[in-house]
């Protein structure tokens, strides 16, 4: 009953929103047959995954023990697990047989499936590589240029982006050392740069078609 008492104290509107955002964030790192990060597989959206996680934890199917740690990180791990299962589900891996005419008349989703003939489709989550994702509206250089342009007016963002591009460094701690700033500052700048990148993607492709910040 201890867990139930703790669950009754939770602000579920706030927790739900944070969890749905986390699900949206994580779903961008996985490949979906739909080619979209809004409609994943089995007709589910990221906030549906958050809902499933909440119900399974409250229902006791996934047992949360308050003495072993706070709720939100536990819920996030449940979301990770649900998303990974969904990405590997047969629904997400279903490949339809299409005639040549179909290839010509359908959009990105079909093109992605066609590409899948060469490699496994979808790539396993652990194998995800942003460089391997088919390019959408903009090419890599153009995306970087747009991000650089957007960051130019904010010196702290431009400084961090410069360091990343110049040293090709993927560890915030080392970027912090390079430019002599605290790691927290780097992480904050990264969040802001990611939001900028997300906005660029959304502006170019629209929210539903957005390939997300990860693809810039």
């Amino acid at each position, binding site marked *: 009953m201890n867990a139930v008492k703790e669950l009754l104290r939770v602000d579920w509107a706030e927790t*739900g929103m944070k969890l749905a*955002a986390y699900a949206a964030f994580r779903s961008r790192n996985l490949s979906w047959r739909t080619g979209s990060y809004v409609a994943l597989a089995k007709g589910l959206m990221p906030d549906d995954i958050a*809902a499933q996680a909440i119900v399974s934890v409250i229902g006791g199917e996934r047992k949360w023990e308050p003495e072993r740690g706070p709720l939100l990180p536990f819920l996030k791990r449940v979301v990770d697990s649900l998303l990974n299962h969904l990405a590997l589900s047969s629904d997400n891996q279903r490949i339809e047989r299409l005639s040549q005419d179909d290839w010509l008349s359908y959009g990105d989703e079909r093109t992605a499936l066609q590409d899948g003939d060469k490699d496994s489709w979808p790539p396993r989550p652990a194998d995800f590589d942003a460089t391997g994702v088919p390019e959408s509206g903009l090419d890599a250089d153009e995306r970087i240029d747009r991000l650089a342009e957007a960051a130019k007016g904010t010196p702290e963002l431009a400084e961090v982006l410069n360091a990343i591009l110049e040293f*090709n460094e993927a560890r915030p701690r080392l970027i912090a050392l390079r430019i002599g700033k605290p790691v927290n500052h780097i992480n904050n700048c990264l969040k802001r740069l990611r939001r900028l990148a997300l906005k660029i993607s959304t502006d170019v492709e629209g929210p539903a078609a957005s390939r997300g910040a990860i693809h810039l």
Partner: protein
Amino acid sequence: MSIRRRVNGRASIATLAELFDQVAPDKIDEAREELRALGVDPSAAAGRLEQLALRSLGERILGEHSRAARALTHKRPDVDLINKLN
């Protein structure tokens, strides 16, 4: 501040992707922004998830009460009406 040119755009994209993956949204404003970028109304999503959570909590509490009540009656056959009827 000007942005210096990098060698390879795709390598830079991969590095940025790796960095961005390390900064999941954890504050409420960031969460709101993330959902908006997805085309989801953050308040509507929060409301829906809150209702769902409260309904699930109600069901769990009812379930635990009825399990506790059943366990109690099984320990006291004199008040177990089902046993008496049988």
